[in-house]
């Protein structure tokens, strides 16, 4: 039985003035997955996430959350989706308790017991003003707000960007505990690849407003191989497998290749590649049209 994907887009695009922030984006985020959204600044990550939660209107294509349009069917979609925007906006003049009250008043599905328990576990001061809390504490309040409405989909835009390593670890732990308890689908964008590798099982790479790669991380790692060998022409290999990047020195050639078969040329030596290398290769790929340029470190 095929379950409705949490998010499904079809050639989704958004234009601001004459510039396309997102273009031709088609992907499906399976329910129950933890998906990493990766890409350089300006790649379209925030645009995509905002379209998913109904904060923006698509210029082209469509987006569906659990089968509904997030803008037109906002009343049906909003209670099922939790969102933490970049910089985790909160009402800085409110106390933590008042902030939770906002959640309670604006969300029919609000679980107050859960919210209070979480706040207690994290030692967040109920009477403390939001503006006086540390970045990590504010992020946790924002996350509490999003989790306590018991969403089926949680969308986070760079949630850990401004946090110190400990706060980051605690935030991600909280997220994973939520997934364990409720099976909530998570989509989070981030720069920090090491974090994402621990936490995510799906990946979407965005660069220059387009999707470069999307799929389960297991499959992605299994499908990519590094080929090394004496300096050679790429054309032969490129006919049979997708060459992501190629790098040449005087005597050696090194290729990152994507394949779903396992027939290789005997003249090439095979290596596995870890996720970070794969992601960097796809991101670097766009920096230069010339495939003979070096991969970034």
């Amino acid at each position, binding site marked *: 039985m095929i379950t409705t994907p949490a998010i499904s887009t079809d050639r989704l695009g958004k234009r601001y003035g004459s510039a396309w922030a997102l273009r031709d984006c088609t992907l499906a985020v399976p329910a129950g997955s*933890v998906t990493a959204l990766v890409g350089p600044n300006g790649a379209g990550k925030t645009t995509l996430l905002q379209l998913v939660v109904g904060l923006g209107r698509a210029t082209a294509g469509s987006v569906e959350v659990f089968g509904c349009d997030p803008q037109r069917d906002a009343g049906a979609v909003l209670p099922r989706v939790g969102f933490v925007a970049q910089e985790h906006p909160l009402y800085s003049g409110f106390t933590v308790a008042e902030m939770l009250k906002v959640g309670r008043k604006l969300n029919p599905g609000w679980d107050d017991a859960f919210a209070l328990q979480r706040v207690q576990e994290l030692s967040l001061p109920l009477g403390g003003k939001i503006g006086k809390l540390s970045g990590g504490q504010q992020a946790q309040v924002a996350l509490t707000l999003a989790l306590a409405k018991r969403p089926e989909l949680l969308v986070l835009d760079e949630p850990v960007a401004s946090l110190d390593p400990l706060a980051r*670890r605690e935030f*991600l*732990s*909280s*997220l*994973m*505990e939520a*997934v*364990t*308890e409720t099976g909530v689908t998570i989509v989070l964008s981030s720069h920090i690849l*090491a*974090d994402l*590798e*621990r*936490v*995510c*099982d799906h990946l979407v790479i965005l660069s220059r407003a387009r999707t470069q790669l999307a799929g389960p991380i297991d*499959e992605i790692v*299994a*499908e990519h*191989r590094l080929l090394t060998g004496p300096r050679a022409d790429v054309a032969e290999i490129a006919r049979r497998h997708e060459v992501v990047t190629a790098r040449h020195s005087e005597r050696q050639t090194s290729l990152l290749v994507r*394949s*779903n*078969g*396992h027939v*290789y040329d005997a003249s090439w030596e*095979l*290596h*596995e590649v*870890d996720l970070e290398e794969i992601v960097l290769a796809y991101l670097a790929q766009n920096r230069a049209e010339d495939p003979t340029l070096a991969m970034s470190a």
Partner: protein
Amino acid sequence: MIIFHLDQRSGVPTYLQLVQQVRQAVRLGILMPGDQLPTVKDVVGTLAINPNTVLKAYRELDHEGLVVARRGVGTFVADLQPSRPPDDLKALRTSLQRWVDRARAAGVGDEALADLFADTVRAERISRVA
């Protein structure tokens, strides 16, 4: 109770690290038959890893017979430790010993020996794509 740790740079998949740590804990007596493994939520809360990874590790251990998953209660170290039929392992060990002797006779040092072995195992795994 076992405390898990994760080495992201080791190149070993996370779930496998958990499996190996449980096996070692059982071997060393840190985990005794009947002991409960940490709940998925606990592991996930401490390590900040995907719960599916933990589930995969526990499933693997269950499959090996090292642990038993009791629905709604938890995952426990199995009472009876399954052992490989001693004959299988014994035969492998003997042929491996002969190989090591041959390599030493050819003047291959310990490090080169280990490299050779690891490379061969790896190459076999890699050529089996996806």
